[in-house]
């Protein structure tokens, strides 16, 4: 098969961070080529480079064998690249027809030859089986139909290579079937598709070839026929069997948190929970393994009181949780290292010291009269001692946290969350984006908390991390628990399979 796209040695650097490092990708005509990788593996960055949204720091793109420089999305469209973003780029108040001809360069003069355009679009839609109701406004059609509009729009603009960024994320099973039929038709018409996903089942079903990315680098490109789910999961996670640094606990203490048949938005496989029962004991670390977006975020938010489950019960320190509010859980000494430290964990425009005492300003050590008068000197001194203890590297504790590096931001959160000797610690991706030193520090801190009798729920997309510090490993897939495994000598193969939904 003839090659349509070749990306050679693509590197994209943001400051000192490499989002893409020396990536090679080759796509042939009439094939479905999957980019597989964890969140943050560099898939989106690579596609944004291809679509002209980013300029690569180094590397060269070839289209149909010729070197090209793609400076803007308009340029990419002109070269025959179509992109369907995860979040659709449609004008909601306009009709399907208007959205498709929007920005159309074919119309010369002032007026749009609607009949001719409509004929072209109808023909195109028939050819690829893209059923759309041209005169309905976008707001009135389903998500699957909106996606068909996006695909049709790209084809109408002459796309030969179609990039589908996580196209199944918002679709129902039936709609996914429909989408796959469309992709098959595109293949027959000799169009190429780059399919971006981290859902194993779909990837195995639709791909011809698969390129696995990990931590911004190409791991390898494999033929579909020569691989299977477990192999791909291993490639994606980059498992290396290094023995854990930490001793594993086999007999946890009494349970701190117990979930009993908890469900949340059951129908949603990637952002819901389906009948979850688990318990976290004192002095143990329970690791949740699984590909990102299988309900982990929702689990974390339920055990910290941010979300209220639709069904089921939760027991916190032996008493039933009546009302789910973050404050109710904080009062019960539940600490939370949230998944997005900038959005959920820190007030970026506030200083390091303010963030450290964020939850405790009403305590007598930091204020008189339940917060009526803040003891600024005491707060400052406490922050200095925390800076020392948690090795927070900043110019001063009055520096705004948004100016700190990711690792130091995380240490600010640790100083806040761990200092109160929590009974339950919920840590979500606690080391995402951190360097080795900072990661080690975070792990040591969690082990320390465990030693003090804290129950820890670790949720991480980094399989190595889960293996490294968990005493018990629970695998989640599509909102369900697939299995529970010991943290000591874990059965890696079995866990990999469970993560792929088998």
């Amino acid at each position, binding site marked *: 098969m003839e090659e349509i796209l070749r990306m050679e040695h693509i590197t994209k650097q*943001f*400051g000192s961070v490499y989002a893409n490092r020396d990536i090679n990708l080759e796509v042939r005509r009439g094939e479905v080529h999957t980019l597989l990788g964890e969140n943050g593996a560099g898939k989106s960055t690579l596609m944004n480079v291809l679509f002209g949204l980013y300029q690569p720091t180094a590397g060269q793109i070839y289209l149909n064998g010729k070197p090209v420089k793609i400076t803007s999305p308009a340029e990419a469209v002109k070269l025959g690249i179509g992109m369907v973003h995860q979040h659709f780029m449609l004008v909601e108040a306009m009709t399907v027809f208007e959205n498709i001809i929007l920005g159309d360069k074919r119309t010369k003069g002032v007026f749009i030859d609607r009949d001719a355009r409509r004929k072209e679009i109808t023909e195109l839609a028939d050819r690829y089986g893209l059923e759309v109701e041209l005169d309905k406004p976008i707001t009135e059609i389903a998500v699957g139909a909106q996606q068909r509009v996006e695909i049709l729009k790209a084809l109408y603009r002459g796309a030969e290579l179609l990039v589908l960024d996580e196209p199944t994320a918002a679709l129902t099973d039936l709609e996914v079937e429909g989408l796959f039929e469309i992709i098959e038709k595109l293949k027959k018409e000799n169009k190429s598709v780059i399919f971006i996903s981290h859902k194993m089942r779909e990837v195995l079903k639709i791909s011809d070839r698969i390129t696995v990315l990990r931590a911004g680098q190409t791991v390898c490109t494999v033929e579909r026929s020569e691989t299977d789910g477990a192999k791909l999961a291993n490639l994606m996670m980059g498992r290396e069997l290094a023995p854990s640094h930490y001793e594993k606990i086999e007999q946890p203490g009494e349970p701190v948190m117990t979930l009993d048949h908890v469900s949340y938005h059951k129908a949603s496989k990637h952002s819901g929970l389906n009948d979850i029962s688990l318990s976290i004991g004192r002095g143990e670390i329970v690791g949740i393994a699984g590909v990102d977006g299988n309900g982990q975020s929702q689990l974390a938010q339920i055990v910290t009181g941010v979300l209220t489950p639709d069904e089921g019960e939760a027991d916190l320190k032996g008493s039933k949780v009546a009302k789910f509010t*973050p404050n109710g859980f904080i009062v019960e000494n539940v600490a939370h290292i949230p998944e997005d430290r900038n959005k959920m964990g820190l007030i970026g*425009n506030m200083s390091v010291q303010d963030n450290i005492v964020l939850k405790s*300003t009403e305590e007598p050590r930091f204020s008189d009269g339940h917060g009526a008068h803040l003891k600024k000197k005491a707060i400052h001194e406490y922050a200095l001692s925390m800076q020392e203890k948690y090795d927070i590297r900043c*110019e001063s504790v009055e520096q705004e946290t948004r*100016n700190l590096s990711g690792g130091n931001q995380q240490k600010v959160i640790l100083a806040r969350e761990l200092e109160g000797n929590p009974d339950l610690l919920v840590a979500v991706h606690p080391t995402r984006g951190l360097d080795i030193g900072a990661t080690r520090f975070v792990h040591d801190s969690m082990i320390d908390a465990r030693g003090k009798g804290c129950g820890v729920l670790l949720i991480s997309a980094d399989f190595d991390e889960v293996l490294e510090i968990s005493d018990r490993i629970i695998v989640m897939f599509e909102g369900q628990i697939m299995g529970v495994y010991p943290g000591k000598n874990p059965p890696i193969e079995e866990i990999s399979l469970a993560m792929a939904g088998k």
Partner: protein
Amino acid sequence: MKLKKTLMSVLVPLASVILAFVIGAIIIAALGGSPVQAVAYLFQGAFGTPNNFASTLVKATPLIFTGLCACFAYRCGVFNLGGEGQFIMGSIATCWVATTWGIEGPGAMVLCLLCGIIAGGIWGAIPGILKITRGLNEMIVSIMLNYVATLFMGLLYTSVLRDGNVPQTAAVPDATQLQRIVPSLRVTWGIVIALAVAAVVQYFLFSTSKGFQLRAVGLNMTASRFNGFSVKKYILFSFVVSGAIAGLGGSVELLGTQYRLISGYAVGYGFDGVAMALIAQLNPVATVIVAYFFAVLRTGANTMQAGTGVPTSVIDIIQALVIVLAVAGFALVKLPQIRQWLAGRGGKKTAEKKEEK
């Protein structure tokens, strides 16, 4: 870093004022006047004599209240553009109590002030409640409520509370009015109330735990929710307090300066307050200073017109320029390139981080 930041937040408004005056001087010269003379008259009019100085303080008083009103809500991350309506509702409540309840004296005055606070608070609560329960945009609701308040006031002074043939209400009885600090000068205890409110707001925001949490909500609502603060309660609270501050302002204005409701009462105070709060970078003390500066321009403008023939509209232009330049200036120093240029080593890192996003 911190010092530099504080320095910039003083330098930018100062530079805007100077630049605005330079442009104003060019306009005055173009009109055939003498800029130096005009400015001399302007400042003489504002604080040349004790009486002029007092007039400036009188003019500053309502501006301080509406400025603090805007400042307080913005600190919680919500936009209260309804300061004017809340100010008017406070005035209406005060006028109603003072002129129709048949009570007089200092006790009545305190009651009037309280009613002003309550009326303003209720008027401020409406956009707050609609925002937290129905998700309505607080800016639109609060602006619309300004019109409702203004027209409601019109209804009152032309019919229900009309006094005699002229479309205006009766005056507040002498004994109920806010008294002058010094009998020979126009300035009343109103300015003292305004400064006290500013001090309380400053203290609340920066020295209490609730104020700290309110600011946290204003800066990052999601993180505040995750850290256990009740975001909705703070939003409603900030609207009620913000409205109450404006309502108290209306009450003070009526009891100390205007004495009666009349066509054109309080026009523009609300948006002036918003502009002042922004120039002051949402700092209550700075808001007082900016409000005083605006009052200086306004009082001085009349003397300038009388002395040199330069129209007072030139001062309106200068005032508008100060707002535009200050807002533009603050946006400018936030640009990564400018930050890099301003700061040396320390600033570079932040600039790079900005670009990553």
